[in-house]
């Protein structure tokens, strides 16, 4: 069908120009038509582009550029804020650490003081107890020596009496005292 019409057109064109397979491009009778419609098409495209399409696309591109710039600035801002926050955090951490160390040292000193006091007290008590005990031991020792002297004198008197019939109490006592002294 299409080829039929084309053939017919071809025939018509041939008839019109009397050339066999000539170039339709050189058929000057159609030039006016082509030029007219070309000018119409170009004017319409120019109006479409200059009135609507190009300003709109330019606006979209500018808007996008602006958005990108703003976003970059905002990102820079946020980054600075993040750095600031990190610094604050580090500072707080260092402060807390120092405070903790201070408290620990204080506590340690307090405990040490209490400990020292308790040790001193205990030493004092121990010293007192030791002195008391020494006193008691000395007393007991003295008591024991007295007892020994008395027993020795009595024993010596009894021995002297048994051996010689009578005993000079004072002489015996003196002799015992002499002996036990050494």
């Amino acid at each position, binding site marked *: 069908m*299409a080829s039929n019409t*084309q*053939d017919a*057109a*071809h025939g*018509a*064109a041939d008839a*019109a120009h009397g050339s066999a*397979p*000539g*170039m*339709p*491009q*050189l*058929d000057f*009778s*159609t*030039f*006016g*038509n*082509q*030029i*007219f*419609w*070309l*000018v*119409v*098409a*170009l004017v*319409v*495209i*120019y109006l*479409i*582009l*200059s009135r*609507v*399409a*190009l300003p*709109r*696309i*330019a*606006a*979209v*591109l500018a*808007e*996008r550029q602006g*958005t990108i710039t703003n976003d970059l600035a905002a990102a820079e801002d946020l980054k600075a804020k993040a750095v600031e926050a990190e610094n604050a955090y580090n500072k707080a951490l260092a402060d807390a650490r120092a405070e903790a160390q201070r408290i620990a040292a204080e506590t340690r000193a307090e405990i040490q003081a209490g400990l020292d006091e308790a040790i001193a007290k205990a030493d004092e008590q121990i010293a007192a107890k030791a002195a008391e005990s020494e006193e008691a031991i000395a007393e007991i020792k003295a008591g024991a020596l007295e007892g020994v002297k008395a027993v020795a004198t009595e024993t010596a008197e009894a021995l002297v009496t048994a051996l010689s019939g009578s005993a000079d109490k004072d002489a015996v006592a003196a002799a015992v005292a002499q002996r036990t002294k050494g």
Partner: protein
Amino acid sequence: MGKIFFFAVLALVVVSGLIFAPAESKLAIHPMDQFIVQPLFGGDHVSWYTPTNVTLWMGLAVAAVFALLVLGSSRRAIVPGRTQSVAELAYGFIYKMVEDVAGKDGVKFFPYIMTLFMFIVMANFLGLIPMSFTTTSHIAVTAILAALVFFTVTIVGFVKNGAGFLGLFWVSSAPLALRPILAIIELISYFVRPVSHSIRLAGNVMAGHAVLKVFAGFAGALGLFSFLPIFAITAVYALEVLVAFIQAYVFTILTCVYLKDALHPSH
């Protein structure tokens, strides 16, 4: 190189078609039929206002530009979707080209250059749809595009620089004796610009499409071996997709170069 090969094939086919056409009626190749300008609603006469296939496909190109650049960007999204990305890509591509090639003061011609680029690229790609009509394959169309550029550049050159624009033809870095000769050469090359500018675009598009049609004609005639021309069509079509974009790009960047000459004519 590939282009030359295809031109050779095209020439061979046309010649062989002329020689063998009466004997081999099956090989009926009319590679140029696709370029015929026809009225859309019947009739033979094509006057300047008749709605033709030219009207249809130029209208579709306008619609495609509108769809891509206006509908595509209608959401004005900060994070663009697919269509909006392509629209922004096209905008950035041409804007950067104008700024880089023509300079900062060329930027006020950006809507004009964008119009040329979008029209050519859309017309070229629409022309790649099978059975479509390629408006940019016609010399009449590309000649008007090139003439618009030529006159714009010339007028801008004289308005901006006055007689200083003629310095474009006076190569002050060359020896004095050579300058008049160079001036003639520069003058000729200046007036040849619109010719090469227009024929480059129309010629490339037309040749590619004609080659496609020639191979398609072979495919119809070869029967079992038609896979060969079909493979060739696929390859040429891929090339044509490239050409469709590259020719639009070349046309636009040359416009920028000419504009640069007009704005800064010193050599």
